[in-house]
């Protein structure tokens, strides 16, 4: 167990590699109740849009959108999921910065209902649909980035087909009083094992998904972070989000540095903070890195100068005085396995 965002959380159960590979092959259960679950009134959509570049007003009911809270300089204060529900907007924000997020939203005049009384469980992996579907009939009908209300043994659940592993799966919001019983019921399914923070990190790293506080922070912009997809089409045309002019200019002209994936030669992992070189010149720094169990090799995310950010660029990472050869590669490192709205797996 370790302290994380003010919570005592498990690093591992049977071992990070075993848990990682189990999740990719079967289904892994993660307790992610440290994340902040917030509700905003639907009428707040327009005001909320002044804080982020996503199209919130145009969200269909039961649709999730990934977005970014931005500061006045266009830096990322947090990344989050927003779902439009019948009566409200449902937000899931990072645990480590949720208090700051809530303060920021309230300072902008938004009425935030922080649901500390809800727990959040993530069930991830190709067999998640089988395991959850056995307990909660109907969840198989949801497509990726869609959500709906369900009940389990009389308990109201809000179930999203989404996650942070690159696999198909669900995130289940449940009243905290029923969370343990639901977790036990899920763990009783033969497809499901409990998964700790260690594998959560290695799974998301392979999926190319950034971790706030490491790969994203208040000094990185959406364009630098390779998250321009989170700037919705209408918002690109209309602006009206923090530092819109600067971010849109960066979108058209390109950023001076970019988040890239690096495949690292050999077996020695390169970790956060390791400098990245092109010849004798430092061109960047690793923001996340480690051994990737499904790739069976070390991988990393780094911010590097735009000139070195192209796929196939040969770079070097310095680890304990040693130079490791690394190559810029497209992310994800491991193909994603989502069940998309078309019904196709992509």
């Amino acid at each position, binding site marked *: 167990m370790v302290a994380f965002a003010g919570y005592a959380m498990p*690093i*591992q159960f049977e*071992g*990070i*590699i*075993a848990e990682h590979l189990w999740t990719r092959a079967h289904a892994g259960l993660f307790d992610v109740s440290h994340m902040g679950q917030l509700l905003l009134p639907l009428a707040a959509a327009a005001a909320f849009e002044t804080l982020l570049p996503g199209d919130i007003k145009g969200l269909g009911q039961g649709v999730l959108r990934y977005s970014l809270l931005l500061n006045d300089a266009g830096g990322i204060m947090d990344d989050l999921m927003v779902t439009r529900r019948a009566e409200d907007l449902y937000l899931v924000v990072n645990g480590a910065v949720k208090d700051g997020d809530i303060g920021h939203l309230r300072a902008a005049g938004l009425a935030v209902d922080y649901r500390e009384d809800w727990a959040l469980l993530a069930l991830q992996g190709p067999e998640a649909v089988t395991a959850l579907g056995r307990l909660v009939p109907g969840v198989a009908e949801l497509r990726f980035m869609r959500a709906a209300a369900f009940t389990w043994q009389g308990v109201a659940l809000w179930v999203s087909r989404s996650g942070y592993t690159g696999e198909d799966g669900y995130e289940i919001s449940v009243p905290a009083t029923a969370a343990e019983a639901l977790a036990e019921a899920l763990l009783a399914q033969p497809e499901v094992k409990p998964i700790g923070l*260690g594998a959560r990190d*290695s799974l998301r790293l392979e999926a190319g998904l950034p971790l706030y506080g490491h790969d994203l922070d208040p000094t990185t912009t959406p364009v630098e972070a390779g998250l321009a997809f989170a700037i919705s089409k209408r918002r690109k045309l209309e602006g009206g989000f923090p530092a819109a002019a600067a971010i849109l200019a960066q979108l058209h002209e390109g950023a001076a540095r970019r988040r890239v994936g690096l495949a690292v030669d050999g*077996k*020695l*992992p390169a*970790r956060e903070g390791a400098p990245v070189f092109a010849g004798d010149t430092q061109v960047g720094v690793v923001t996340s890195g*480690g*051994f990737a*169990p499904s790739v069976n090799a*070390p991988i990393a995310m780094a911010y590097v100068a735009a000139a070195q950010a192209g796929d196939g660029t040969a770079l070097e990472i310095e680890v*304990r005085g040693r130079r490791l050869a690394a190559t810029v590669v497209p992310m994800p490192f491991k193909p994603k396995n989502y069940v998309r709205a078309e019904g196709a797996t992509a």
Partner: protein
Amino acid sequence: MTRYYTDEHEWLDVDGDIATVGITDYAQGQLGDVVFVEVPPAGTALVKGTEAAVVESVKAASDVYAPVSGTVTEANPALEGEPALVNTAPEAEGWFFKLTLANPAELDGLMDAAAYQAFVATL
């Protein structure tokens, strides 16, 4: 041959003036899946308490300090291809390196198996 343990969770098998060094089963359990071990090459002069090796697990990089002073005679060649030996056989095939003792008196402060087990039980 006599086996000694340190409070840094290393073991030493001492045979004459040669010691074989590795980390304990308790240590590997704390580290988790080992994916890389950086061991000192033969000829490296180690000073007790200074950095001797680095173990990279999936979680993190951890330093291993020289339990005694001496000169490395051999690094375990098997660890390069199979670092997981540190998990599966930490106190046998997963040894790190052998060294010639520079100062055998340094062994006096180390624990035997019973003392080490008692130490681990307090953690």
